[in-house]
């Protein structure tokens, strides 16, 4: 793929025509500036977007976010919508870490009350929130409880005292996607999931204590409880071994299912099943169970974070701003070429970003639009945006999920010394707690794109609007 095959629509939008490859059913729309687009051409992410355009039943366009990078089959930072009656669902278009997502908690605690005790605070958070390779969670659940988590998501946490009603109201889908069925989930997923509720995991998962450095939209920031100079906490985790197993099971099963339905695809990782087939419905039900597991996992972690925070800073409270998914498949209604259609929106490394007035938004965000959380890399800014009406039309109400990798984990480990990185971050006033220095090196800022440029592109394309910028004070790296 090279730049000549891509048509410039405007400074922030580019298109790969449907005729670029014979299997393409729709064009690919890229939201990016020229510099970031050229960077994206260095890996195979745009070829993967072209391959994803082969999925039967696609409508509109395959959308590519400015933080796009190469995934497996489907690019990370890709959005594709398939028509519910005639289209397919592809586990690879959602990802192995089903409902990997982000939560933001805001506080009324000013930075100056934290800086002198930040090392103690982050150490206590590290103890309260299990993290790292193969970690067990805050508690082990039995089979009956796990089945309830599959079907109730964060609702299970509410019933068991690990959530407030406000937490639930300010989570995507209220922290529970309807239509989950534990019976569609394998025994192995259950075995892996039982021990990991309330665990951060490893890789790029993190907890970050941030300073709210700048506010761009006072009204929206106020609705979210974000004030300049105060502390906020971000949490990034997913469905752990439970979700990985669900995706693995169905990618494996769908290898033969695609053949059964005579679906030709350019990449085996894109395997899929018709949404209205038994196999498609089974995956949808299992994927929703994994998504609910992830909602509950982040909720239990948020509860542990809140308890630690309130112990350390009596009289202050952490309020849930929002909890959202960025690896998910959702049945949603969108306007497509003048028609209202029910579609399955695959978001892989992309965040839902509904505009103001959408019926699925909680009352407090109806006027401003959905909060969109875009974490940067360790040591750089993170952003809070709101979704827009323009985004509803252009990208099925979707937005970037982060900065996007430019170095693979292996490359990052070769180029970055973990100990040196920890010292550099400390010199900049950022405290780090990490399970391993090699793991830390994998998540070095130089392994990621410039998140500020990503935000420029998102706002330039009209997919989101800036609300606040956060800068890190301390990070727990899973």
């Amino acid at each position, binding site marked *: 793929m090279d730049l000549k095959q891509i048509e410039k629509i405007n400074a922030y939008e580019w298109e790969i025509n449907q005729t670029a490859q014979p299997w393409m059913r729709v064009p690919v729309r890229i939201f990016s500036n020229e510099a970031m687009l050229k960077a994206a051409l260095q890996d195979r992410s745009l070829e993967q977007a072209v391959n994803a355009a082969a999925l039967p039943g696609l409508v509109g366009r395959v959308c590519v976010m400015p933080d796009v990078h190469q995934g*497996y*089959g489907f690019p990370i930072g890709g959005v594709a919508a398939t028509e519910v009656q005639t289209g397919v669902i592809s586990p690879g278009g959602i990802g192995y870490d089903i409902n990997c997502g982000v939560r933001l908690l805001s506080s009324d605690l000013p930075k100056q009350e934290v800086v002198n005790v930040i090392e103690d605070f982050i150490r206590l958070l590290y103890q309260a929130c299990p993290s790292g*390779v*193969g970690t067990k969670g805050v508690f082990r659940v039995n089979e009956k409880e796990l089945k309830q988590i599959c079907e109730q998501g964060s609702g299970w946490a509410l019933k068991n005292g690990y959530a407030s009603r406000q937490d639930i109201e300010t989570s995507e889908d209220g922290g529970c996607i309807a239509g989950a069925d534990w019976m569609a989930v394998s025994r192995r997923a259950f*075995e892996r999931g039982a021990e990991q509720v309330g665990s951060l995991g490893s890789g790029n998962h993190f907890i970050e204590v941030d300073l709210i450095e700048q506010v761009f939209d006072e009204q929206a920031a106020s609705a979210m409880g974000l004030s300049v100079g105060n502390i906020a906490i971000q949490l990034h985790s997913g469905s752990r071994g439970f979700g990985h197993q669900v995706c693995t099971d169905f990618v*494996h099963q769908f290898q*033969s299912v695609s053949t059964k339905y005579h679906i030709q695809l350019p990449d085996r*990782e894109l*395997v899929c099943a018709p949404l209205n087939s038994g196999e498609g419905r089974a995956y949808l039900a299992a994927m929703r169970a994994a998504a609910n597991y992830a909602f509950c996992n982040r909720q239990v972690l948020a509860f542990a974070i809140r308890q630690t925070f309130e112990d350390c800073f009596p009289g202050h409270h952490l309020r849930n701003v929002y909890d959202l998914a960025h690896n998910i498949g959702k049945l949603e209604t969108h306007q497509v070429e003048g028609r209202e259609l029910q579609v399955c929106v695959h978001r892989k490394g992309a965040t839902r970003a509904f505009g103001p007035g959408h019926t699925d938004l909680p009352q407090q965000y109806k006027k401003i639009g959905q909060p969109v959380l875009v974490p940067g890399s360790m040591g750089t800014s993170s952003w809070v945006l709101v979704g827009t009406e323009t985004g509803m039309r252009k990208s099925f109400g979707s937005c970037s999920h982060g900065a996007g990798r430019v170095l693979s984990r292996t490359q990052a480990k070769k180029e970055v010394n973990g100990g040196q990185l920890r010292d550099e971050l400390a010199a900049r006033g950022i405290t780090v707690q990490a399970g391993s220095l090699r793991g830390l090196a994998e998540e070095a800022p130089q392994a990621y794109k410039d998140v500020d440029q990503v935000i420029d592109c998102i706002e330039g394309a009209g997919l989101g609007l800036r609300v606040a910028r956060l800068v890190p004070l301390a990070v727990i790296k899973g």
Partner: protein
Amino acid sequence: MDVFAPNLPEMFNNAALGLYHILGIRKGTGDRESVHIELEDIDLEGLLVAFLNELLYQVEEGWVGEEFNIEIHETHLEAQLRMTPILDRQHDIKAVTYHELKIIQENGCCRTRIVFDL
């Protein structure tokens, strides 16, 4: 991960050793167990992914394979594994992917490239 060997069973064996290497496994002591695996899939690539996913599951259960006796017949695999308890490991692998997976058998050599989701 690039894997090669003179024949398919050895290539599967080497892929298993590479998987354990990426996970950074340290073997513990204790009673060993013998595990028998039987897998069916649509092709050799599918069998390789299924085999490695089976080993990943065993790792999650706390076991690492030491001795492998693998037989492969087109779309069927049988393996007898001697398992040892794991003391600890450095990394997680989310999944073994089918990303551009192709097993090439030519000139008395079997080779492939496997991409993991870490």
